[in-house]
């Protein structure tokens, strides 16, 4: 079946602009995760949704970052007033119900802030 998809695959923006990154999880997966991977590092957790609600947002670096999942499927990560330090690959993962610990990753969105 189809895996996790993320759009766009690449996003270039200017400092101070607003961006939205989209994640389509595997159909039927109730848990959805966002991670950020900077160059030369492993992915770092940002936020986790169980259904429509954010169950853990402890990884969001500051209030410029926000994510939603209004219908319990597609999720959007929103970054306001982007900074050059936000440049990274943003990864989305999903998990099926009853198997919360096995996460399936999407290809990521590479964000470049000029």
């Amino acid at each position, binding site marked *: 079946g189809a895996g996790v998809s993320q759009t766009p695959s690449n996003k270039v923006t200017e400092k101070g602009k607003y961006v939205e990154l989209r994640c389509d999880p595997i159909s039927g997966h109730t848990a959805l995760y966002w991670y950020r991977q900077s160059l030369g590092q*492993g992915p770092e957790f940002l936020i986790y949704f169980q259904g429509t609600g954010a169950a853990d947002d402890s990884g969001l670096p500051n209030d410029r970052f926000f994510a939603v999942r209004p219908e319990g499927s597609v999720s959007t990560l929103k970054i306001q007033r982007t900074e050059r330090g936000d440049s990274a690959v943003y990864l989305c993962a999903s998990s099926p119900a009853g198997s919360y*610990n096995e996460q399936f*990753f999407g290809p990521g969105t590479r964000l470049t802030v000029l």
Partner: protein
Amino acid sequence: AQSVSQHNHHVILSEAASLELGCNYSYGGTVNLFWYVQYPGQHLQLLLKYFSGDPLVKGIKGFEAEFIKSKFSFNLRKPSVQWSDTAEYFCAVNSPGNKLTFGGGTRVLVKP
């Protein structure tokens, strides 16, 4: 907070050589452990996982890993690598909670 360390950032070896990648984590409670692989141009894929039971876990493509609780370690091994094993390997732990904490990754280059 949980932390994961991978001892080698880069490994270069020839085909048919044996591979062992180290991984240590900090959390002392119940843990679930994972190795993910990222082949060039591809997304992260699960290689193997440990939840409970036999501490020697076998994964895809001939990889295995051993959980040693007393050493807080989960090292990845493959007896004989192939050129196609060239990739970046990430160790991850998810305790407490559902979020994964990743190590910094190890880039493995297998020379044909």
